[in-house]
């Protein structure tokens, strides 16, 4: 074994997986995991832990893996994270824990994410649950939104003995984990649902179909339903569009709509009633994780797919692994290309997209080189479907119905980074609702910090 190289992980063949919704990556088996675990040198001052937003005791759980005590490894991770099987799959490990790993200075870093995933999958298959709380303290906390931020906050508070209810607007808990990230990256029944069940097994109640700001308000929850504190983890919000002509034509979707139809409503499965217009030639505008997910979903539904992104390959905001997977599967990248107009046929459906080529000019405020149009480079990409993946802007449902809840100029809720406290007493917030679209683990980190903040607040009251 070459200690400088990580144990490779098995994946589904690109050609085969491009036609199904089964998981791309198979993960490690016990043997592979134990072998990879031996690469960790058990640093006294582990840098990896500093790179993890929820500070998982990484050498601790890896040690247990080398000892072949996977149950112990799971209990170590569970102290810090409620969704390890999720994070092991979708965390951008390469820029977090693994980026700091000492092994990475010379050779590959330890595959911390894949090990975490292995431990969580093993625990699930062996029906190991996180340890439930010992005592209840009788205090009630309401959590708004059952995404990673809300689930983490609820799980942590339940472990401390609080009586927690999550209110979720949709008919399923999970947030982006169920409606955004596709099945082939994050299986819903086997992984997401099971980790949510683990949170419920800690005593957390989840009430679905409750839209805070509409079905009830934060004020009612506190004044009438007796909640002592509230955590807002309501996510990122409304999809953005470009404002170019033709954008409301039939066949133009936001990535959120396309993915929600396929993931949450399971439109890819004929047994389910919700329709989806898969498209034959699909253009996805954008270069983030969301764009990759939409593109790879369209591909699996049978389309030829283009990613249209105005900057270059290096600037793609998506995870390297996702870009790599997308390319392997046959997604065509039209980089340094910007849409100008969506062309519409006489029946009101998309027929193509007029684009212009770009080149990189001077760096802008974000430090990235600003793309500028190349003169006389317009061309038409023939398409029947366009998916806009340009990010989101905050949903006003909660901020507009809660007195005294401060938002910033981007309309995100203002909350203290350490405690999650907002401008309203007893009301805390975290995750995408505060930061704008970010990552699962950052949302979880914020949920965790807020759980501690709420605990401190309620103890001092």
């Amino acid at each position: 074994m070459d200690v400088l190289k990580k144990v490779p992980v098995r994946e589904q063949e690109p050609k085969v997986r491009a036609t199904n919704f089964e998981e791309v990556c198979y993960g490690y088996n016990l043997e592979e995991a134990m072998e990879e675990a031996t690469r960790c040198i058990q640093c006294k001052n582990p840098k990896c832990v500093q790179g993890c937003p929820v500070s998982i005791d990484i050498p601790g759980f890896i040690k247990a893996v080398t000892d072949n005590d996977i149950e112990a490894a799971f209990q170590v991770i569970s102290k810090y994270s409620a969704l390890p099987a999720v994070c092991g799959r979708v965390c951008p490990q390469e820029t977090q824990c693994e980026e700091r790993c000492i092994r990475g200075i010379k050779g590959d870093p330890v595959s911390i994410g894949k090990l975490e995933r292995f431990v969580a999958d093993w625990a699930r298959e062996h029906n190991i649950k996180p340890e439930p709380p010992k005592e209840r303290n009788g205090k009630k906390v309401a959590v708004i939104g059952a995404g990673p931020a809300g689930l983490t906050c609820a799980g942590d508070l339940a472990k401390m003995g609080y009586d927690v209810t999550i209110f979720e607007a949709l008919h399923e808990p999970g947030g982006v984990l169920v409606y955004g990230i596709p099945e082939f990256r994050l299986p819903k029944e086997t992984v997401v649902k099971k980790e949510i069940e683990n949170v419920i097994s800690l005593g957390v109640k989840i009430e679905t179909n409750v839209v805070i700001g509409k079905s009830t308000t934060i004020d009612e929850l506190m004044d009438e339903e007796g909640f002592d504190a509230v955590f807002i983890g309501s996510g990122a919000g409304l999809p953005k569009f470009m404002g170019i002509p033709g954008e409301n034509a039939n066949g133009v979707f936001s990535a959120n709509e396309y993915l929600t139809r396929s993931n949450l409503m399971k439109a890819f499965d004929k047994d389910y009633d919700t329709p989806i217009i898969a498209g034959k030639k699909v253009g996805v505008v954008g270069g983030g994780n969301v764009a990759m997910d939409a593109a790879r979903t369209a591909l699996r539904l049978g389309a030829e797919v283009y990613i249209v992104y105005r900057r270059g390959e290096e600037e793609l905001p998506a995870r390297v692994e996702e870009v790599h997977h997308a390319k392997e599967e046959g997604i065509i990248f039209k980089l340094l290309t910007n849409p100008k107009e969506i062309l519409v046929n006489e029946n009101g459906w998309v027929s193509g997209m007029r684009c212009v080529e770009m080149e990189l000019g001077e760096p802008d405020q974000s430090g990235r080189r600003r793309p500028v149009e190349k003169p006389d480079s317009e061309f038409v990409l023939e398409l029947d479907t366009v998916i806009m993946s340009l990010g989101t802007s905050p949903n006003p449902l909660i901020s507009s119905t809660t007195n005294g809840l401060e938002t910033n100029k981007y309309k995100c809720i203002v909350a203290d980074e350490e405690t999650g406290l907002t401008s309203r007493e007893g009301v805390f917030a975290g995750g995408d609702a505060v930061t704008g679209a970010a990552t699962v683990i950052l949302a979880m980190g914020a949920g965790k910090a807020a759980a501690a903040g709420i605990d401190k607040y309620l103890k001092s009251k």
Partner: protein
Amino acid sequence: MAGNYSYTITKKEKLSNAIYLMDVKAPRVAKNCYPGQFVIVKMDEKGERIPLTICDYDREAGTVTIVFQALGASTQLMAGYEEGEAFRDFTGPLGHKSELIDMPREELSKLKILFVAGGVGAAPVYPQVKWMKENGYDVDCIIGARNKDLIILEDRMKEMVENLYITTDDGSYGFKGNVNDCIKDLVNNQGKQYDLVIAIGPMIMMKFVCILTKELGIRTIVSMNPVMVDGTGMCGACRLTIGNEVKFACVDGPEFDGHLVNFDEAMKRLQMYKTEEGKVTLRQREGATHHHPGCGCHDENEEK
């Protein structure tokens, strides 16, 4: 079909050939809903999320009334549910309440309002006229449909509205003509004056009412029913062009200033997921009349 679900149907009534009314137990919705808002119903595990306007509510009993037309696969399936059975999901209230509810009383008492309901549009109009009546304001109301069989909620409406006008295209009941003919008759021949029209029905009807009221110089509010998925402002499916802006019907609406709505775009978008089976049923039931050009009332089965 019922499963172990909690949103129980406490009452079911057939209002016409293919239009049904149901009272559904949903205490959280019943407690905080207002006229103008809607709910999303998901019948079972595999069902769609179906948006339906709130037709009435009983805060004490914790029930909400919905009225729907059995058209395509989903609404036909819904028509098969009986009293005592239950839906898996029932979310709401969604969207804004009617602007009348929060209008200063002084201003409201000065307004002469005409409600115009086309086809199933009578359902969303009903809670608004009821609210007006209960708060002591008189309004006029037109209910229009293609023929007598498609006129719904007439008795309930009568209790709430002093001046109720019924109109049918074929003259089988009430005034003969579409709702626009009826509005013209009221304004031109009967000397009626209105400050505000609230028109709810098929998009094509709302479009033509708006063209007329623009000519007449009467401000007009319409309730839009585009394709929706989540209904909470997350997916963007329900986007409309209002004036020069893109708006999301589920969070910014569903009621808008009708004179600013781009109806042609909205009607095209509404066709996006129309199933063949929905269109066939329609043709069988209604003959070829639903392609009648230019008129206000012929498309209720196509739209609402």
